[in-house]
């Protein structure tokens, strides 16, 4: 049996074996908020925004991250309950106050997935003091820049660089809230010997953490769809659109 039937938000949908809840939902026109997920990359289930409620036999529901949970036969899923909306709001709020997000002066203003998420989830104020950790900006690369102040540690850059470009220039160092993305052995990006300057990490970044140096705010569009095109092209060995 390679097709499952399940219910998402009171709608009967089918999913192919191996598909995630997120994929099954989106093929059926049901959108679930995501941030660490990016089409074409592996999933890590880190941001927890895609949490959905899955009915449990015997009553009640459990929470599952839609991007990493396989769709299964007879699953009954809710993607937009009060409880989920509450958690999503809290997660966005936690993210906003973790580092220094001042949208009005950010290169990604109006092209930022975190900002969009805040709007779509109705986060209009943040109840925490900003933690204001010490965060550096790395402008050593001739074309790109990294601003840790805007990084949400979604690891999309890490995965894009490793899985698509095959360079593995990025990784996460440290742990907990002291985690930072690093290039190579934490050398300045410009000194990296593994970076091919392909720009895929910049394309993958959902916020203003990675950017094209010369870009003015309005040019700062991440062309994320291009990344999935690249993945697609690699898999199908077709390099024209």
């Amino acid at each position, binding site marked *: 049996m390679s097709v499952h039937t399940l219910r998402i938000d009171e709608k009967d949908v089918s999913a192919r074996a191996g598909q995630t809840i997120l994929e099954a939902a989106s093929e059926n026109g049901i959108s679930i908020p995501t941030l660490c997920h990016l089409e074409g990359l592996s999933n*890590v*289930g*880190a*941001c*927890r925004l895609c*949490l959905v409620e899955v009915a449990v036999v015997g009553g009640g529901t459990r*929470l599952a*991250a839609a991007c*990493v*949970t*396989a769709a299964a036969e007879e699953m009954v899923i809710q993607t937009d309950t009060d409880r989920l909306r509450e*958690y999503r709001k*809290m*997660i966005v709020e*936690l*993210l906003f*106050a*973790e580092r220094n997000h001042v949208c009005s002066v950010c290169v990604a203003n109006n092209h930022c997935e975190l900002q969009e998420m805040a709007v779509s989830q109705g986060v209009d104020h943040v*109840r*925490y*003091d900003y*933690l204001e950790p010490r965060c550096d900006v790395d402008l050593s690369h001739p074309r790109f820049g990294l601003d840790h102040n805007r990084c*949400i*540690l979604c690891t999309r850059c890490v995965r894009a660089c*490793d899985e698509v470009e*095959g*360079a*593995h*220039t*990025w*990784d*996460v*160092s*440290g*742990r*907990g*809230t*002291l*985690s930072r993305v*690093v*290039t*190579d*052995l*934490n*050398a300045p990006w410009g*000194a990296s*010997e*593994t970076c091919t300057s392909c720009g895929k990490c910049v394309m993958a970044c959902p916020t203003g953490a990675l950017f094209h140096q010369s870009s003015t705010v309005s040019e700062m569009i991440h062309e994320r769809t291009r990344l999935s095109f690249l993945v697609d092209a690699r898999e199908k060995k077709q390099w024209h659109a």
Partner: protein
Amino acid sequence: MDLHFQGPEASAEERAAVDGVLRDQPAHRDLLLPALHAAQDRFGWVTPGALDYICRRLSVPPAEAHGVVTFYHLLSLEPMPAAMTHVCDDIACRVQGAERLCDELARRLGPEGEGGWKRSPCLGLCERAPAAVVIRAGAAPSAFAVAPASAEAIATEPEEDFTAFRRSVPREGGRLLHRIGRVDPSSLSGYLESGGYAGLRRAIEIGPAAVIGEVSASKLMGRGGAAFPTGRKWEAVARASARPHYVICNADESEPGTFKDRVLMEGDPFAVVEGMTIAGLATGSERGFLYIRGEYPLALRRMAAAIESARAGGWLGRDLQGSGLSFDIEIRRGAGAYICGEETALFNSIEGKRGEPRNKPPFPSEAGVFGKPTLVNNVETLVNIPLILRLGGEAYAKIGTSASTGPKLFCVSGHVERPGVYEVDFGATLGELIAMAGGVTGGRRLRAVLLGGAAGVFVGPDQLAMPLTFEGTRAAAATLGSGVILAFDDSTDLGDILLRIAAFFRDESCGQCVPCRVGTVRQAELLHRLRSGCLIGDLATELALLREIGQVMRDASICGLGQTASSAVESALTALELLAGPEPRS
């Protein structure tokens, strides 16, 4: 992948240190952590030359290696003094003067880090608090625990005498602790003469299916904290079609207040080996890993020696005891990360990656270490196995209560007269255990007990009649966790203990998922605000926010760390009606 490297050429010394563990084996990625340990042990830090050489030999991208080194607290990328004393300032040690010890070390040796000492979360020596572990790098590296520790005592390596165990096991233990202090832990013949390997002999005789039958009949539940039926796990791994299968003994024991696994490994290491071997035969695994926390030098030495003797005696390796079956054990040393006790983080750590938990499913029995079906059991769980085979599963199930069978080890520490590991049959109450440990120190009044460790809950003195069984603790909305009973008398500054617990989770969060990474920081920060009285808004708003953070961590986090990070705090607010500030002193 095309790998590019940078940085200085490795010196002959650096290469030798790394080659010592890699030898001429083909580059196995999973040797990354052992190789990093080798550099750390030799130089006191992971030097750039050594790191570069390791990356080359194992084909690991530099960014990834950097990520791995910085994940573990016992590894350093900065030059450090060759001798480092790790001083526990965690819960049990705090109430026995850990802060005073840290102050004194700062005065005598200089500031934390460059002074050759460092604060550490629980070192698993709580019964002899305050505790320290000294790690000396060099051509002949050494490591030893000093407990109780003092500024003078940390200068010399204490004698290791296996008969001096009363400080850790104050009372005779009938079934699990019977060899501790009586049988030489380095002697295979001593083990055999005291009934050792009878369980494995019987396992070989009756075969895997019957062994699993016995374990299921025993109704043994895992002792690592999650209380999962052991028989069900074994069966799932045995049945899994993918090959090979692996067995892992989880000896990471880092839950604050827990030290039973250390006592078992130090005092009866062959029993751990025997339990693992039976698990290997039953689940069709030929390779086992013992993942032991990096702060357990004596347990590591005793386990390594026992594995070697067992191998030499034909109890490990190919065709063991002429049975035609093979099983062997490899030791993997942790490097300072509580999260690596979580089973899927442990897999990543063994594979040489950052110790980040994985999303489940898939469960370990389907896809565990190296993506293969894997059995993970706690040390104490495995030590019960030979006993089950000797007694028979049904007879074992008659010990304890009907839902909590067998003997159980409890780690009693804090303000009690005789802290240590206590063995009882399931069913004893909290009050009985505290009485066994001689009651509250100096006859003071009991203020609170932390059950189950930092991930557990506080209960008040009104709960002494609670039976310490899975069902009894559940009924009281408490938890058995890893068997921690940490007692606090009425002079304890519980607000300070709560801050330490919150700091523990903040420091140990792997940082992968948002609710836990940021939530643990916010929880710690809020507790500081409540304690200092510098509130934002009124108290009710602050408490509501604290509860909300707790809720999102519990429900939305990937793993048990985030899910339990607010448990002790919440229980302190409700069960102990603790708000803020020091308790009134009596």
